[in-house]
C-alpha cells in the first residue's frame, strides 16, 4: 500500500486491550485521510447523539496520506471525535512531529474506545503497544508530562497529552503535542480526560512509501518551490508569523476588540507581529516537513511574565490582546504559554475572558464572585491570572472552563458569547468581512477560521482580491475554500501551503503518492464529500439550520468606529444561496440527489 500505511490501531480503554485491523482502503480513497477519514469512521461507528464525555464517544487520531512524506508541510494529524464544547463533529488539526511519528510506527489511525478505569497512557513502539499506568502523571502539566514520558519510553518519542484542563474536563481543553503544538478546538482535550487517557507516546522506525517515486519527488519539489517563491509562504510568515495580521485587520476595521464591541483597537500595534519580532522572537520554527516556518520560538524577559516557549499566533495574540483590551505583549505571550502548559485552546480562552470581562463590566458578577480579580477590559494581570485559574479549573476559572456560551448563559446573557455552535469565533469581525461570517456560521466544527479562510482573498488579496463587503460572491467563495480546505486537512498537509499552491498541486501529489488518480476536480469533490458527511453527522446529532448563525451583536449592531464603521453581517442574505450551491435544501439538509452525486450512503 502506498502513502497510507494500511493499518489502524484500535484501543479499548475499558477492557485495557488493543488490536490492529486493515485500513478501510475504500474509505481512504474517497475520504482521503485525517479529517475526512476520521469523520467516516465516526459516521459508521458512533451514534451522533452520544454524550461526548461518555465512554460511548470515540476519539480518533489520524494522519493523512501526505503526512511524513516529502509533501511540503506534511506534518499534520487530526483528532476527530464528538466535540464536548459544540455537540458537533470535532476535527482538531495539529502539526509538530507527532503525526509523522505515528505513521512511521505503521499506523494511519488510532481509534480510542471506552474509558479506562484509572489514568493511563498509551506507548507505541512500532508493533509493540502498551497501555500503561499514568497515575503518577495525573495533575502534571504538558512539559512535565512530555519530559517524564520521554524518560521512561524513548528520548526521541513524540508525545501528545492533556494538561490539568483536559483532566478536569474543561470544555475548552486542548490536546498538546511536541510541547507547543495544539489540537486545540472544540474541547477535544476533555474527551481524552473523560477517557482517563493522559497521553499517547509514539516512536516509529518504519517507512512511508509512495507509488511513483520520481513523479512524487518532482511534484513535491515543484510545490515546495512555489511556496518558497511566494512572498507570504516563503518570506512573510517566516519573518513575522501569523500575527502580522493584527495591524492588517485593525487597519481595515475588522479587529474584534473588547468582546467584539468595536472593530478597532487603539494600540493594536503593541500586540502585533512586528512587536513580537522586535521584542520576543528568538527564531522561527517549523513543523515536520515545513517550508514556511511560521512558528515563533519566543522568550519573555519581563520578570512579571517571564517565560520561554512558542507563540503567540495571531488568533492567540488577538484573544488575549485586543479582544480583552490588553496591549501588553508580554502578558499576551505569557497567557499563551500558560495555555500550552495547562492544555487550553487559546482562541476559546481569550474570547471567554473577553466575554467574562463584558459580563463583569455589565455587573453580572462582582469582584467577590471572581475571588478578587478585577476583570475589567484592559487589565493584563487579571487576564493572565484568570487564564491560569481556568487551566487549573480552580476558583472562578471553573466558570470560564465551560467556555463563553455556558458561562454567559448562566449569568443570563448567552447573547454576549461570541460563538457559533457554542465555539468561540476567531479574530476576524464578520461585520467587516462578509465571507468569513458565512464560513463561521456553516463550519461544521463550530466557528473556525481554518475551515474556509476567505480572509485570504477578502482582505489580503491572495490569490486575488475580492471585495470584502460584497455578498453576492461569497457563497461560492466560501464553498470553494471550505471544500479545498477539507481535502488539504485530510491529506495531512498544512493549510498554509495555500499561500503558494492549490488544488492542481494537491492532485499531482496525491496521485503520485497513492497511485490512485486524483484530478483537480476530484480534489474539490473529495472536499465537498467530506464537508457534506460532517454536515450529515451534525444533523443526526440534533443540530439544525438554526445553529448556522452568528451572535445577534454581529447581525444587528453596526460597527461604531474604525474603517468598517456602519457594517453588519448580512448572513441571512448569503445563507440560502450557500445552501443551494451545496446541494442542500432550504433547511440545510443535503438532498438525496447531492448525496448520490457524492456517493454518500446516508
Amino acid at each position, binding site marked *: 500500500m502506498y502513502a497510507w500505511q494500511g493499518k489502524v490501531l484500535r484501543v479499548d480503554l475499558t477492557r485495557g486491550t488493543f488490536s490492529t485491523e486493515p485500513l478501510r482502503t475504500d474509505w481512504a480513497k474517497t475520504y482521503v485521510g485525517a479529517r475526512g477519514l476520521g469523520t467516516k469512521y465516526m459516521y459508521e461507528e458512533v451514534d451522533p447523539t452520544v454524550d461526548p464525555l461518555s465512554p460511548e464517544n470515540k476519539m480518533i487520531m489520524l494522519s493523512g496520506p501526505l503526512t511524513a512524506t516529502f509533501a511540503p508541510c506534511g506534518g499534520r494529524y487530526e483528532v476527530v471525535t464528538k466535540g464536548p464544547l459544540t455537540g458537533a463533529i470535532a476535527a482538531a488539526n495539529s502539526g509538530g512531529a507527532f503525526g509523522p511519528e505515528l505513521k512511521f510506527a505503521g499506523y494511519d489511525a488510532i481509534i480510542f474506545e471506552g474509558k479506562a478505569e484509572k489514568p493511563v497512557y498509551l506507548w507505541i513502539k512500532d508493533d509493540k503497544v502498551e497501555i500503561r499506568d499514568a497515575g503518577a502523571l495525573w495533575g502534571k502539566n504538558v512539559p512535565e508530562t512530555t519530559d517524564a514520558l520521554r524518560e521512561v519510553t524513548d528520548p526521541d518519542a513524540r508525545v501528545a497529552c492533556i494538561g490539568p484542563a483536559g483532566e478536569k474536563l474543561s470544555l475548552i481543553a486542548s490536546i498538546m503535542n511536541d510541547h507547543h503544538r495544539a489540537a486545540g478546538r472544540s474541547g477535544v482535550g476533555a474527551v481524552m480526560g473523560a477517557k482517563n487517557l493522559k497521553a499517547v507516546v509514539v516512536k516509529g522506525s518504519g517507512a512511508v512509501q509512495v507509488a511513483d517515486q520520481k513523479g512524487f519527488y518532482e511534484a513535491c519539489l515543484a510545490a515546495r518551490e512555489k511556496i518558497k517563491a511566494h*512572498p*507570504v509562504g516563503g*518570506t*512573510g*510568515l517566516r*519573518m*513575522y*508569523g*501569523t*500575527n*502580522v*495580521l493584527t*495591524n*492588517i485587520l485593525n*487597519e*481595515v*476595521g475588522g479587529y474584534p476588540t473588547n468582546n467584539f464591541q468595536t472593530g478597532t483597537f487603539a494600540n493594536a*500595534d503593541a500586540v502585533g*507581529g*512586528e512587536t513580537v519580532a522586535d521584542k520576543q522572537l528568538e527564531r522561527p520554527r517549523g513543523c515536520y516537513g515545513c517550508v514556511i516556518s*511560521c512558528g515563533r520560538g519566543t522568550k519573555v524577559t519581563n520578570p512579571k511574565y517571564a517565560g520561554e516557549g512558542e507563540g503567540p*499566533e*495571531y488568533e492567540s495574540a488577538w484573544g488575549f490582546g485586543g479582544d480583552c483590551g490588553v496591549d501588553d505583549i508580554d502578558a499576551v505571550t505569557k497567557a499563551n504559554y500558560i495555555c500550552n502548559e495547562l492544555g487550553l485552546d487559546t482562541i476559546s480562552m481569550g474570547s471567554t475572558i473577553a466575554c467574562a470581562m463584558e459580563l463583569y463590566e455589565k455587573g453580572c458578577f462582582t469582584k467577590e464572585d471572581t475571588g478578587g480579580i478585577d476583570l475589567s477590559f484592559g487589565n493584563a494581570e487579571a487576564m493572565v491570572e484568570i487564564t491560569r485559574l481556568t487551566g487549573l479549573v480552580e476558583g472562578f476559572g471553573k466558570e470560564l472552563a465551560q467556555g463563553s456560551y455556558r458561562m454567559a448563559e448562566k449569568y443570563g446573557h448567552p447573547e454576549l458569547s461570541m460563538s457559533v455552535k457554542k465555539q468561540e469565533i476567531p479574530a476576524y469581525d464578520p461585520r467587516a468581512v462578509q465571507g468569513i461570517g458565512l464560513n463561521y456560521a456553516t463550519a461544521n466544527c463550530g466557528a473556525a*477560521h*481554518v475551515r474556509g*479562510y476567505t*480572509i*485570504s482573498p477578502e*482582505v*489580503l*488579496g*491572495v490569490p*486575488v*482580491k475580492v*471585495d*470584502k463587503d460584497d455578498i453576492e460572491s461569497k457563497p461560492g467563495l466560501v464553498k470553494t475554500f471550505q471544500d479545498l480546505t477539507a481535502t488539504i486537512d485530510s491529506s495531512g498537509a498544512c*493549510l*498554509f501551503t495555500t*499561500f503558494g499552491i492549490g488544488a492542481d498541486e494537491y492532485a499531482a501529489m496525491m496521485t503520485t503518492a497513492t497511485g490512485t488518480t486524483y484530478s483537480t476536480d476530484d480534489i474539490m469533490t473529495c472536499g465537498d464529500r467530506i464537508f457534506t458527511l460532517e454536515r450529515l453527522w451534525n444533523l443526526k446529532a440534533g443540530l439544525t439550520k438554526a445553529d448556522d448563525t452568528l451572535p445577534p451583536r454581529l447581525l444587528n449592531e453596526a460597527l461604531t468606529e*474604525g*474603517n*468598517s464603521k456602519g457594517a453588519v453581517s448580512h448572513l441571512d442574505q448569503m445563507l440560502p444561496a450557500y445552501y443551494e450551491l451545496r446541494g442542500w435544501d432550504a433547511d440545510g439538509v443535503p438532498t438525496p440527489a447531492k448525496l448520490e452525486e457524492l456517493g454518500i450512503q446516508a
Partner: protein
Amino acid sequence: MKVRYFALLRDITGCKEEEWTRPADTVGGLIHDLVARYGSSFERWVMKDGKIWDLVMILVNGRDVRQMSGFETPLKPDDTIVIFPPVGGG
C-alpha cells in the same frame, strides 16, 4: 499626507509612519516617489514588472485601492495611506 508602514517596510524606511509633504495626485505617483526615496529594497516589496504588486495592500483612509482605481486612485493632502507588503497568516 500621512503614510504608515508595516512589516518589512518598517525596516526599509526606518519608521512606522511619516508625514509625506511632497504632493502626489495618485497612489501610483506616491509609490513612485517612495521608491525613489527608499530605493530598490522598497521597490522589491511593492512593485512587480513595473507596476504596483497586486499582493501589496494599500489602504487610503482604510479603503483598499485594489477596489478603487488601483494605481490611479486619487489622493488628497489630508489622506492617510497605509502600506502592507505581501504578508499573511491565519
